[in-house]
């Protein structure tokens, strides 16, 4: 099998696993982990776009100029993207800390219910109370440690 096919499989696999984690997870921290995986896969994919077999690193060592060098442009892009990624990760984690502090839960369903309630309260809308209304909303379960 070709090396390039294996590498592309790794990149696409990381992207798929990352999106699956974002879609399927209910825990906020797990979603942040999945964002990290997705970002890693995207970086690898960007770097593979200009892969050539047998190229050497784009660095001149000891005045020896290699015949075929890898493309430095995506490398420069990915280099900065990784550093920005860690900044985004830190921001996401601090937001998760604030959510935990304010609402005491990291479960996405509970967070969504609380958000809707707060929006209703702020807008002065009564929750629907007609006879045909669906059953009242369950109170937000205060789970703090959840699975995938």
């Amino acid at each position, binding site marked *: 099998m070709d090396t390039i096919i294996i590498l592309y499989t790794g990149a696409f696999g990381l992207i798929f696993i990352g999106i699956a984690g974002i879609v399927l997870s209910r825990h906020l921290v797990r979603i942040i982990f999945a964002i990290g995986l997705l970002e890693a896969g995207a970086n690898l994919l960007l770097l593979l776009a200009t892969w050539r077999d047998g190229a050497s690193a784009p660095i001149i*060592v000891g005045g020896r100029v290699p015949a075929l060098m890898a493309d430095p442009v995506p490398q420069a892009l990915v280099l900065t993207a990784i550093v920005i990624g860690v900044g985004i990760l830190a921001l996401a984690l601090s937001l998760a800390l604030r959510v935990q502090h304010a609402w005491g839960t990291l479960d996405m369903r509970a967070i969504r219910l609380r958000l809707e309630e707060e929006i209703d309260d702020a807008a002065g809308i009564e929750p629907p109370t007609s006879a045909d209304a669906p059953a009242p909303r369950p109170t937000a379960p205060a789970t703090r440690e959840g699975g995938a």
Partner: protein
Amino acid sequence: MTLTTLQLIALALLVTGIALSTLRLLLGPTPADRMVAADTLAVITTAGLAGLASVFDNPVYLDVALVYGTLAFVGTVAFARALEGNRE
């Protein structure tokens, strides 16, 4: 590129180490086991990066091994520190 016998043996040993440590990482059973497996993998990878520098016959890859070796220690310390602070 062609590998010399020595490089082949070194890479085979490193791959064996990676396989065994990954098995421990995936099987567990306790989180501490997985943490130690991750640390072992970091050490093996540092050696593997130096081996890759030898295979590619280019000394610039040694810098990567240097950075990985120094910072893997910090990561493990962060794991251990958070554990230590939690255990009253």
